[in-house]
């Protein structure tokens, strides 16, 4: 499939501006862990208050791209783990036989963030929330590509992960720090993404839990900020090849 990445934005602790990411793409060190949250002061306080850290990250990277494009703008949101902090709080309350917070309950579902996005932007375009595996980014690109093929002039793709509560540490090993990436995708030939079947790794369970040095979405950010033109990503039996075509 072919498409253009018209604009992009990314956020991780300490990495907010394009220049931050350019510097990062040269040295590629892990961002320092911190409690910092992205700035969403472009929203009124009454709207901002119900945004989780995951939602704040998603909004902070996606909002400027949507502003630049204007509405309506279809959205594909993908997160492998979603609102684990909200889910964990609710489950803890269930265990303690305490009443559940209506706010936490209503916003713990996977599509809550796109619902908030649609309300706050006043945009009723088609919006999808996906939970992919380790190659969720590529599945989201496929979904966006289908919307472009149906005639959408542009599609906003947002991938975001928040640090899960400590109790999840034995199972969630692919979120070394919170991050979000937004891509404004348009029809075009700049990028090609190909999927090929490959033999699954011999030890599938170890491959499932393998800890990448940093999340795959940030490999794409590194490519975009550093002028890298090819990217290979293997997940289980799926081999994804990204190729930027020279102008």
């Amino acid at each position: 499939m072919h498409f253009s990445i018209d604009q992009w934005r990314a956020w991780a602790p300490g990495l907010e501006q394009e220049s931050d990411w350019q510097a990062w793409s040269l040295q590629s060190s892990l961002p320092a862990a911190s409690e910092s949250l992205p700035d969403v002061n472009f929203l009124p306080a009454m709207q901002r208050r119900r945004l989780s850290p995951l939602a704040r990250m998603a909004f902070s990277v996606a909002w400027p791209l949507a502003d630049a494009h204007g509405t309506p703008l279809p959205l594909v949101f993908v997160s492998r783990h979603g609102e684990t902090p909200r889910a964990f709080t609710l489950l803890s309350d269930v265990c303690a036989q305490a009443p559940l917070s209506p706010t936490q309950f209503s916003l713990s579902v996977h599509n809550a963030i796109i619902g908030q996005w649609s309300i706050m932007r006043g945009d009723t375009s088609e919006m999808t929330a996906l939970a992919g595996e380790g190659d969720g980014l590529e599945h989201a690109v496929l979904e966006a590509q289908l919307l472009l093929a149906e005639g959408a002039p542009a599609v906003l793709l947002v991938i975001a992960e928040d640090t899960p509560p400590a109790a999840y540490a034995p199972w969630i090993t692919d979120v070394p720090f919170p991050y979000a990436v937004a891509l404004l995708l348009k029809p075009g030939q700049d990028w090609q993404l190909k999927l090929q079947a490959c033999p699954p790794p011999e030890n599938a369970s170890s491959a499932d839990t393998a800890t990448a040095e940093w999340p795959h979405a940030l490999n794409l950010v590194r490519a975009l900020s550093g002028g890298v033109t090819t990217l290979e990503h293997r997940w289980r039996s799926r081999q994804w090849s990204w190729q930027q075509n020279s102008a």
Partner: protein
Amino acid sequence: MSDLQLEIKNLIIEALGLEDIGPDDIDADMALFGEGLGLDSVDALELGLAIQKRFGFKIDADAKDTRKHFANVASLAVFVSAQQAA
């Protein structure tokens, strides 16, 4: 302003995440829902839960007076006092 009114104002701010608002910004007779402070139906449920937890009594969500009790901070303080005395 009574201590109970102040406690209820702080409970509203804390339970509903009103990060830019202080207790002085909420008048005791300011409407909490719709006009005034501008809270919505999810806030109503959340605030009901917070009041029950803090003051240790059950609120009947279907009782016809519940809406009246939640009109403003002053009416909530009267309601909480009455429940605590009961």
